[in-house]
């Protein structure tokens, strides 16, 4: 398992500036997140061997794919890499099945057809195997592209904005499928996206990219609870993401109790079974801080915690306060005035107040 770790180091000043270094373990989903033009796709292309930056080192397990220092560069067709391209890049003159069979060159010719059908079934495309891409819907094309990427039995799976061209309903279903795949594949998966919903839903790790330079990287809960990432704040708004589990469900009162590493949260009702693992996102703007437990409010969540960090950077119009609630770090965006009035510094004990309707709950399928 550990022998399939993907290690990447890319550096060049021009024409596309790049300065990134990361590893991705099998089973992990690393989301490369950043604005368009920040070099996300170039990173994927460098891993796939479609591009070679000036200084590059790409290693998959024991195989060195790129090492510019040693003048090593394996062409894309010699890398066990599965790629889902942004617009899918299906072969327009071939049927869905033939598209997948194209990537099965390593199999004996007699078994390719059956294997292609099996892969298409696996991504839930049980019919239309004989149709050409233009006769398929956006979601179906996406599935063909995914099956084709898996056909090579890749050591790394690369997804380039895979949900950009499909509507929200299809996107949700595809999220579930990729999530499910990731659990069975046990290879590193790199997901390039500019939509944070994809990140919250699928990623275990996050790499934030700005003009080709990685400005932060780490596990998703660690990064989302950092108070000092102005870029994240400006683009999507700060907000911690952490894991929780459905503890109780009160359909009558429209409530869902979620247990997490720090207590219990009450969120508004979702049709989820008890025990379901979920991801929770709480936006920093929706968190209110109080020095004593408030009474007589409509609020369900008053979480006792300790201030672990305060970012009062002059460049910001608010202060970002990081509060440790058990093992989970929440962020709260409050005014300078509030910080002064309440005397908030690192170590202050207080309550983080969160409305139940402000809690974003995203189920993890297959768990």
């Amino acid at each position, binding site marked *: 398992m550990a022998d399939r770790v993907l290690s990447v180091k890319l550096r060049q000043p021009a024409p596309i500036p790049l300065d990134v270094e990361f590893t991705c373990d099998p089973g992990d989903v690393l989301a490369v997140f950043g604005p368009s033009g920040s070099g996300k796709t170039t990173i994927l292309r460098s891993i*796939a061997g479609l591009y070679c930056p000036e200084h590059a080192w790409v290693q998959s397990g024991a195989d060195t794919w790129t090492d510019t220092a040693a003048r090593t560069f394996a062409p894309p067709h010699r890398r066990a890499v599965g*790629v889902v*391209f942004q617009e899918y890049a299906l*072969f327009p*003159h071939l049927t869905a099945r033939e598209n997948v069979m194209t990537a099965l060159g390593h199999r004996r010719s007699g078994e390719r057809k059956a294997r292609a059908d099996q892969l298409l079934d696996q991504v839930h495309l049980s019919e239309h195997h004989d149709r050409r891409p233009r006769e398929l819907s956006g979601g179906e094309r996406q599935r063909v592209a995914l099956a084709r990427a898996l056909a090579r039995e890749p050591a790394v799976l690369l997804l380039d904005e895979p949900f950009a061209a499909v509507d929200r309903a299809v996107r949700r279903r595809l999220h579930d499928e990729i999530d499910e795949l990731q659990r069975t594949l046990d290879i590193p998966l790199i997901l390039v996206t500019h939509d944070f919903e994809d990140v919250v839903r699928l990623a275990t790790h996050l790499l934030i990219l700005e003009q080709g330079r990685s400005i932060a990287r780490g596990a998703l809960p660690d990064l989302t609870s950092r108070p000092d990432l102005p870029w994240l704040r400006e683009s999507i708004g700060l907000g911690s993401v952490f894991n929780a589990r459905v503890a109780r469900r009160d359909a009558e009162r429209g409530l869902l109790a979620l247990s997490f590493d720090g207590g219990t949260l009450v969120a508004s009702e979702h049709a989820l079974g008890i025990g379901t693992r979920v991801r929770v996102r709480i936006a920093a703007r929706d968190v209110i801080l109080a020095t004593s437990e408030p009474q007589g409010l409509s609020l369900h969540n008053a979480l006792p915690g300790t201030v672990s960090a305060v970012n009062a950077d002059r460049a910001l119009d608010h202060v970002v306060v990081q509060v440790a609630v058990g093992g989970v770090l929440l962020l709260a965006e409050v005014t300078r005035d509030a910080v002064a009035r309440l005397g908030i510094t690192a170590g202050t004990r207080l309550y983080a107040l969160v409305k139940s309707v402000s809690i974003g709950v995203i189920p993890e399928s297959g768990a």
Partner: protein
Amino acid sequence: MDWAALRVSLWLGAGTIAILLPIGVWFGRLLAIRRFRGKLLVEALVTVPLVLPPTVLGFYLLVVFGARSPLGQAFQTLVGQSLPFSFMGILLASAIANIPFVIQPIQRGFEAIPSDVRDAAACCGLTPWQRFLRIEVPLAWPGILTAAILTFAHTLGEFGVVLMVGGNLPGETRTLSVAIYDRMQAFDDRSAGIMAATLLAIAVATLMLTTTLARRVSLPRG
């Protein structure tokens, strides 16, 4: 009806395609996917035969093919025959005159393939040759077919260059187009009419063939 002229014309058309198509696929693809310095100049040079008056082109080819030129001398030593006023001469001239008719449609054909699709083929494990044969050629096929048909049709109609380089030798350099002119000069309207009708029939047949093939190729892709 001058059967020898018809034979010369058909051989000339087929020979020109045989020489130009492989070169056209190689070079057209190169122009479509590579970026290099001086590409604009190369593209302009490729188009020159299209805008040059055929007699001017013929004149320069005669100069280049002539016994005093290095090419003419080399050919004379190798084949023991001179290029001007021979079938080899008009074949070579026809190939040069038809360069734009071959390169441009093929270049457009390869340009129409999205670069993502070529990348995807590489990421499917296909070697460069497999990518070329299984993905690129089928997708650029309408362009390649157009190039072949245009070349064939244009060769049949070529008059100025052939006459300048090849003259009017029966069975060797007298093509159907030249033969029609020859017959008209001799006031043999009937023969000229038959041969003109033959060329017309061939032209219509080629166009019909193109349309049928192009439809068969493009139907599955829309």
